């Protein structure tokens, strides 16, 4: 079974004090050079893809609302544009930016990701994310959200946001299909640039938005760029089962990993998923050989590192053990969140990957240039093929 590895890139790394590590480059976090360096490191490690976090709210140590801390990284770049900037300076690496399904326009996101796929020649992915906090909503002023209490989530409200996310993904996917692959004909005899019977209105009408189509952008090279979702509960698992190719989950133990996988397969049955089953990736926050480094950073931050994902501080060999063990359960991939950049990404490329290669569990060179293909997913025909009126 193929093993897939990706790295989740965000700021200076996933430890809130990562930017204070001696290896960090805190003044360069908004420069292309910094991100190009990280992408090159990921490509050196033959990783399947990297993801880019994004949100409209400024980072905060509080769950709800901004804080007044000045000792953590604040600010981030638009993820789609960041991914696009890296497209021409990489050759194989998949590029998977996050966008908001709550505040962005589905039409703009669809053409943005399609354009990223054209610019990267078939290496684009997309991570739709729900943004339910009121701080994000206030930046748009169109909707007012109730306070979110993580201890007592209002599942009715949350479900509404996830239903909107499913509609959003449906619109995006229809827009990607709205041009058939051979729509451009350049037929000099009839003077036609396109065969308009191969362009399709998508006519989506939903509770939150309606979109007529077709896309302004020709079908992306992959047909459907890779769609990935992060989930911590059944509601997002069902969103993934309806809309995604890849699901990231956050088990903290082998036992939990098995339970979650069962829940995901249930979710697939609940929504009657057809086609390829979800490829399930486990998220792990990694600080290699990091007990001391983590303690030092915790100390600087004034709090012990907290994460939704498992925090791993062992050696590369120990992580390889865990990866191969969980793979036996049915995990096809892992999304590793480097605690400190570039240190822990370099450890992935320089130690974890060679260790996995030694065990015959990971590729020794890139074969496919197209991201879907690397994930073993077929290139889908447009859903509208053959429906010309």
């Amino acid at each position: 079974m193929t093993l897939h590895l990706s790295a989740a890139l965000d700021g200076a790394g996933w430890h809130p004090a990562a930017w204070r590590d001696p290896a960090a480059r805190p003044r360069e976090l908004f420069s292309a050079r910094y991100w190009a360096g990280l992408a090159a490191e990921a490509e050196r490690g033959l990783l399947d893809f990297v993801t880019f976090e994004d949100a409209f709210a400024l980072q905060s140590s509080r769950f709800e609302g901004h804080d007044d801390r000045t000792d953590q990284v604040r600010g981030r770049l638009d993820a789609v544009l960041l991914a696009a900037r890296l497209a021409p300076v990489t050759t194989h690496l998949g590029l998977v930016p996050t966008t908001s399904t709550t505040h962005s326009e589905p039409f703009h996101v669809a053409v943005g990701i399609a354009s990223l796929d054209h610019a990267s020649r078939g290496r684009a992915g997309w991570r739709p994310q729900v943004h339910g906090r009121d701080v994000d909503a206030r930046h748009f002023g169109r909707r007012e959200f109730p306070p979110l209490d993580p201890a007592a989530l209002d599942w009715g409200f949350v479900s509404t946001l996830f239903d909107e996310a499913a509609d959003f993904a449906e619109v995006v996917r229809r827009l990607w299909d709205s041009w058939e692959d051979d729509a451009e004909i350049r037929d000099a005899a009839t003077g036609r640039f396109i065969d308009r019977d191969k362009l399709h209105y998508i006519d989506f009408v939903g509770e939150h938005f309606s979109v007529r189509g077709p896309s302004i952008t020709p079908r992306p090279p992959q047909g459907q760029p890779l769609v990935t979702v992060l989930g911590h509960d059944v509601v997002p698992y069902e969103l993934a089962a309806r809309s995604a190719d890849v699901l990231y989950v956050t088990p903290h133990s082998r036992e939990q990993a098995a339970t979650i996988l069962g829940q995901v397969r249930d979710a697939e049955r609940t929504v009657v998923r057809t086609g390829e089953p979800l490829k399930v990736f486990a998220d792990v926050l990694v600080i290699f050989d990091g007990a001391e480094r983590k303690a030092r950073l915790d100390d600087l931050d004034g709090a012990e590192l907290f994460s939704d994902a498992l925090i791993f501080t062992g050696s590369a060999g120990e992580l390889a053990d865990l990866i191969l063990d969980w793979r036996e359960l049915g995990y096809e991939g892992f999304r590793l969140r480097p605690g400190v950049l570039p240190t822990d990404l370099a450890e992935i490329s320089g130690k974890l990957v060679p260790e996995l290669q030694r065990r015959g569990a990971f590729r020794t060179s890139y074969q496919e240039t197209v991201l879907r293909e690397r994930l073993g997913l077929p290139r889908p025909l447009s859903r509208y093929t053959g429906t010309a009126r």
Partner: protein
Amino acid sequence: MPKQIHLAAHFPGVNNTTVWSDPEAGSQIDFASFERLARTAERGKFDFFFLAEGLRLRELKGKIYDLDVVGRPESLTVLSALAGVTTHLGLAATVNSTFNEPYEVARRLATLDHLSDGRAAWNVVTSWDAFTGENFRRGGYLAEADRYARAREFLATARELWDSWSPDALIGDADSGRFVTEGAGEFRHEGPQFSISGRFNVPRGPQGRPVILQAGDSPEGREFAASDADVIFSRHSTLEDGRAFYKDVKDRLGKYGRRPSDLKILPAVTYVLGDTGEEAQERALHIRRQQVSGQTALSFLEAIWGRDLSGYDPEGPLPDVEPDLGEGVSRGRAQFRGDRGAVVKQWRELAASRGYSIRDLAVEVTGRQTFVGTAATVADQLNEHVQTDACDGFIIAPHVTPGGIDAFVDQVVPLLQEKGVFRTEYSGTTLRDHLELS
């Protein structure tokens, strides 16, 4: 010292001016085409590269218009990728202010400014129609009269967001443990169009504020440009017309406390070169006939006649039927706003006096190239336009992708450089530097 000329390159778009049938014509969507044109522009030391936008495919008679180029990428995404293969060239994106929100657009422009080391520009357009709105959450709710009100407030809000991080708000000092200053990004905007507050999450870009382009030509559009824009994308490309426009707009600057040099006026122009003037004229006519196929000529008349003319022979005489002056048959492009009946009458007279077919007429009345001649003549004319205040430079719109500015860069640019009116090397790094804007 003579006035310095500013030059921009327009990636060929979705009008019939782009000749897709030419043997030299390449892909309109592959990144390689964008990269090739951008690299050529940078080799020619151009100020910036320009991408247009259209958020709904055009329709004629209720069907997607299929005779011109159809389809293009999202402009900011392509420009961000181009930032990776260029080093000095400005990168200008057209982004609509009706079907977007200021927070998101401001952060995308600020992101491009960071990722290009200070080369981002935003062409603010105000399309508001319900036809385009059918692709968006908000739909076509905006009254035409409100489009500039929204655009002005949209831009003002974006500036508040860009200014919400001071240049020294980002500290990143590991020893003291201070990453940012207190309150970095705090903003509150209360207005008729937008009521938003919070904290902007992109630090100030290298240019502070990206360069603002504006293309509106109405009195309202000119006023918007005079108060808010750094560059006007003008359609006044002839000498007389250009001078009148130039004076009109520059005269409006004073009341906003701005100097004439604070707003650069760049008309979109086309060019055709030849070894002799005659050869250039012949080539120009050939290109015009490529741009206006028989089918294109018919569709062009249909937009004015407001009815189906598909039964007419484009090589035959003008339609004898009377125009339907109702709501028209064309959607998704700038509408002809004059008296269509009068145009029909005028064209019939012109065709009768010259013996024109439908296609001859369309070739005659559309898409005449701006500068046609030898490289020396064209360079002289360009310089005359700038030195006599018809404009401050040009946005070159080539008719072929991606090699359409090659001849200009190879033959005309060196002559402008010899005259001492165009840079031989970039002297600055940001687009504001190139445009001599503060």
